[in-house]
């Protein structure tokens, strides 16, 4: 009996996907316009995109840029966020700057960065890096701020240096919160990736998507939307799995990620 419920819980996201596709199919059949193909037509167009060597290389290049931008962003943001969380001075030094940068869409910096660095990989990766950094810094900051003082005092009493306390006490204690930030950052990296490629039309998944829109290949447009959406959902699920292993001891605060643009 219990396995029945558990099975339903596991299947629920898949059922939701199927339901959405079903609603799409019905809506397309009712509206019946050329610019809104049915879900089935869009799904059928997927193999031809993934089978095409050039598009596949493009999509993989996008993913590589995203991985680099995300990796570097996380590496640099976690230490900064932790230091901000533990030191009032560092926090008040960086906070206003971050507040000014926050509402600026990172992908909108693309035209300016393109002027300096060209349209190549560097510019796009840099934009992804910027987009990932802010949520990771913010969540690491919140996580480090909430660490119990007593644990730090005990650590200090046992002779840990400040750096050791940071790595052995603050980092593990803030890890659940940091991973929440990384999860938001992951979704954000995907979004920034698409937008940056859309602005610098040269290569990548975003380029395929918007070129198809310009050329009126509606099946390809919707198929790309499904592919990009599946990438988002897949990456998120994979990260959630990893997170479950890393911080098994902690209750998941948000079991659904917050996505940014």
């Amino acid at each position: 009996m219990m396995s029945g419920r558990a099975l339903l819980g596991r299947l629920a996201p898949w059922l939701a996907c199927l339901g959405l596709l079903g609603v799409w199919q019905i809506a397309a059949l009712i509206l019946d316009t050329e610019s809104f193909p049915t879900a089935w037509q869009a799904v059928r167009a997927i193999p031809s995109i993934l089978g095409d060597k050039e598009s596949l290389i493009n999509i993989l290049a996008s993913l590589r840029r995203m991985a680099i931008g995300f990796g570097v962003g996380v590496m640099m943001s976690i230490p900064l966020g932790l230091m901000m969380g533990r030191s009032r001075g560092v926090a008040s030094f960086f906070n206003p700057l971050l507040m000014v940068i926050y509402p600026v869409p990172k992908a909108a910096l693309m035209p300016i960065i393109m002027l300096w660095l060209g349209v190549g990989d560097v510019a796009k990766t840099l934009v992804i890096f910027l987009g990932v950094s802010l949520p990771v810094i913010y969540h690491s900051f919140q996580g480090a701020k909430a660490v119990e003082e007593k644990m730090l005092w005990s650590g200090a009493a046992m002779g840990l240096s400040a750096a050791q306390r940071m790595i052995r006490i603050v980092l593990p204690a803030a890890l659940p919160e940091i991973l929440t930030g990384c999860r938001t950052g992951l979704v954000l990296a995907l979004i920034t990736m698409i937008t940056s490629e859309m602005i610098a039309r040269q290569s990548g998944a975003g380029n395929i998507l918007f070129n198809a829109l310009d050329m009126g290949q509606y099946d390809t447009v919707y198929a790309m939307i499904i592919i990009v959406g599946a990438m988002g959902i897949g990456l998120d699920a994979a990260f959630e799995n990893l997170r479950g292993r890393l911080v098994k001891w902690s209750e998941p605060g948000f079991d659904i990620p917050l996505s940014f643009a």
Partner: protein
Amino acid sequence: MNVRAVTSDVLLGIVPIALLIALWQALVSFGYAPATLLPPPGLVFMRLVHQLSTSEYQQEIAATLFRLFSGFSIAVILGVAIGLAAATHPAVNAVVRPLVRVLAPLPKVALYPALLLLVGFGHESKILLVVADALFPILLSTYYGASMVEQKLIWSAMAAGTPRRQILFKVVLPAAVPSILTGCRIGLVISCIVVFLAEMITSTDGLGHVLVTAARTFQAVDMFVPLITISLLGLILNGLLEGLRTYLLRGFPEV
């Protein structure tokens, strides 16, 4: 002590911004960057002040703000309603949870071409994109805020004779307000970002369009102006929301 600590914090916070502008100025004055690529900050701010006083630029700002507010308000109404419903009705919860799980990590910008094809190139597609992106943070924080409400509060209200249907508005909603406002804050920042991006992709007006036009004609100065404007707008709106928060939460203990 408090006032002094706050002033020193503010002063410390101005330092990196000042350093950034100084670095910017230095890059230009020592000739590391040609003025066509990186215009000096003075020029950019002069241009910003000049633009802010012209009626054309004000209309661009008005167009952006209209889309931002429409999208954000719809997202708040929908998010709070769905979040409350999901937190209080198990049946709604069973439907909403998996749907949100699938839709929340979906990159919404990728939906924009579909929105363009479906509802056209006008205000509607941009507003819908803002709604799609701002909805989930608000929905989720409403849901978590409402499901964290202490059962004792509800029991007390029922014992005091509050009718069942009023409990939602008299107990659950007020108790969830701090969490809802946190969600609104995230949603607002996202709305700023998304409305700008949507205008960059296809638009005939708005701040994003100003940036794209400037980029096409390589007017570096005009590229910085809309970016600074949206940053300022974000700061002002955030400040307003913060004010609303202190007003609404005046009875709450400091969190």
